[in-house]
């Protein structure tokens, strides 16, 4: 019934009031019919993106380099040096090493070892750092590259062990262990 559909607006009890209520009903009905086609407001919902990163370093050239002492002549008067190898690691950006040591399989953690009866010592230099590029929305970036230079030396005056007039080249494997 028309009276129920419209919020009651008190009108004066004269004939003009009856006509005003009619216009009000029509207007309200018209308004109600047009509501679905009007863009009036936005609504948003916030949420969190979260991740935990475990920093890592990984060797990138393991097993590819050789520290070579050349030929040692027994009882030679001068120490024998070696070439320098660069052992490289890629690391999480900003993640810094704490300490470095050698394996204890073929020698000591400090870098001493014996090959064909000749004692040698290895030294790892302070690492150099080439910082990686940061990640952006366009690229994943690159890792920090940390490089350790390793070289060795043999003391002079060593007899060595060899039943023939010369022995070698003799080789064994050493490992640089970096602790982060």
């Amino acid at each position, binding site marked *: 019934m028309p009276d129920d559909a419209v919020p009651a607006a008190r009108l004066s009890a004269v004939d003009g009031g009856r006509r005003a209520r009619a216009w009000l009903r029509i207007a309200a009905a018209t308004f109600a019919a047009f509501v679905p086609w009007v863009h009036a407001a936005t609504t948003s919902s916030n949420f969190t993106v979260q991740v935990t990163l475990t920093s890592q370093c990984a060797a990138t050239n393991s097993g590819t380099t050789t520290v070579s002492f050349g030929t*040692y002549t027994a*009882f*030679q008067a001068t120490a024998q040096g070696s070439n320098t190898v660069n052992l490289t690691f890629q690391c999480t950006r900003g993640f810094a090493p704490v300490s470095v040591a050698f394996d204890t399989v073929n020698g000591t953690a400090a870098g001493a070892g014996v090959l064909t009866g000749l004692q040698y010592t290895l030294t790892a230099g302070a690492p150099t750092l080439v910082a990686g590029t940061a990640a952006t929305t366009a690229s994943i970036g690159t890792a920090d590259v940390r490089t350790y230079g390793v070289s060795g030396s043999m003391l002079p005056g060593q007899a060595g062990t060899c039943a023939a*007039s010369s022995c070698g080249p003799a080789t064994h494997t050493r490992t640089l262990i970096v602790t982060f």
Partner: protein
Amino acid sequence: MKAARSALLAAISIAAVLGPGAAIAAQAVSSFKVQVQLSNQVSPGSDFCRIRDMPGAFGAIVTVVCSTGVVVQIDAPSAQSSSLPIHGGAYRFLPPVSWAGLMSDDMTAGLGTVTSWRVIKLADRDLLEMTVRW
């Protein structure tokens, strides 16, 4: 390339180790002195031998006893062979001669000088030794 480089390095290493008593390739050398003093004097081990009071002992023509206690028998040389180099050493036999120059015992000799001859056979030569007493 690598083999040539290490061979060159080996050659340089070997050449660098030189000096007294050093080793070159597969040899090692060690030097030492050899020393001797040569004396022409009669060594204390030898001595003169003289006739003692035992002529004709052991059936020998002349028997002498050396001060070292060794008895030396000297036979007359035979016609076919020279004296054998027996008794060795540097023993010298001086026939006894009196102050008057007379030889004693069975030896007959006139006044004068008694001499003896001895041939010493060495490795590279023979030495003729003559003993003269006056």
